[in-house]
């Protein structure tokens, strides 16, 4: 069994030789192309990521611009809406005022008309009243004529007539 733990140093020499040659050859033929491929791929990935990042930044910028534009348009819209509302309000005021003025004018005209009518009516009434008063006065005057006097006057007239013409028996006797 001592062969198991007794190293054969000739084999050690072979091992070192073999291994060193292997390192030299494989470094050139295997590890260099492998690492180059890996590095190329890593660079490509890095490039892709950078491109994606720049595209994303660009998109962000455009989005910001659009948002700003949108805000601007919204402000403009609100402004226009406000001005239109104010204009409408003013128009309303104007129409109402005009209507009020027009109503006042019509009212005035009506009042004048009414006044004229009233004056006319008053004048007519006065004339009528004067007429009526005169008629009434006449009647009153007539009423104030004394029947006794009238009768005496009549009797005297009759008596005169009888004196002048005895054929007449007007007195009844």
């Amino acid at each position, binding site marked *: 069994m001592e062969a198991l733990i007794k190293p054969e140093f*000739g084999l050690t020499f072979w091992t070192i030789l073999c291994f060193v040659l292997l*390192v030299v050859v494989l470094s050139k033929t295997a590890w260099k192309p492998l690492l180059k491929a890996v590095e190329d791929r890593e660079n490509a990935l890095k490039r892709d990521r950078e491109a994606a990042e720049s595209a994303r930044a660009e998109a962000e910028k455009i989005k910001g611009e659009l948002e700003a534009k949108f805000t601007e348009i919204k402000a403009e819209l609100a402004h226009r809406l406000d001005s239109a509302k104010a204009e409408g309000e003013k128009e309303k005021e104007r129409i109402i005022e005009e209507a009020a003025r027009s109503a006042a004018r019509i009212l005035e005209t009506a009042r004048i008309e009414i006044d004229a009518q009233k004056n006319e009516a008053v004048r007519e009434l006065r004339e009528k009243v004067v007429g009526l008063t005169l008629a009434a006065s006449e009647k009153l005057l007539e009423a104030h004529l004394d029947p006794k006097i009238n009768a005496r006057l009549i009797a005297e007239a009759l008596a005169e007539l009888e004196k002048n013409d005895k054929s007449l028996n007007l007195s009844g006797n």
Partner: protein
Amino acid sequence: MELKEILEHHIVDHVWAWGALGPLKFPFSKHLLMMGLSAVILLVILPLVIRSRSSALAPFRAMIEIITLFLRDEVVLPNLGRKGAAYLGYFSTLFFFILTMNLLGMVPFGATATGNLAVTAGLALTTFALVNFAGMREQGVFSYLAHIVPKGVPLWLYPLLFPIEIIGLVTKTFALSIRLFANMIAGHIVILAFISFIFIFGSFGAAIGFGVAPISVALVLFILLLELFVAFLQAYVFTFLTAIFTGAAMHPH
């Protein structure tokens, strides 16, 4: 057959021939074959899968990529700092090399090269070299040697602490090699023991042997799955510890 023979047959390296260079002897063995096999597999498969554009290989490409990126982001960069990216090739190769050798040990007729102390010692020595190289490169040779002793230590403790820190460096390396080696052979030994149970009980009577067999096989299956997990875990641990040691050498504070 004795258990000892079985164990030696399955776990210990088989040297087929010796190459000699002066007084030095280099074995050509089964573990060397397995190590070479895993190296060839990595050399062929990794570039093929990584460079291919076919969609059928895409899952494997993704798998390799995920492991490599995990090593980069969770192991190398946190420990070594920004300059650690230059060492990623070393750590990736280390992980996949150990992993392939571990997994080859689980293939029938295969052998676990990382279950050989010489192999793990070799890997640990490269780590030791890397730790010192990275430290000296980062701080300069003299600054590195000066910073081996932690900051804030009284001056009179330096003669004591300097050798201790040097020993610590060596110990870390030694522990690395032992950890991988022990983890890789432990599963094999347990599996061989469970298989041997069948024959040990079978020697009491064929019926008892057949009775024990299902239990043994179920346990062996469990240990095999555990070994599969350990194969990945130990490759990761070895890589991770190497990163920690290297990071500590590069950034002493």
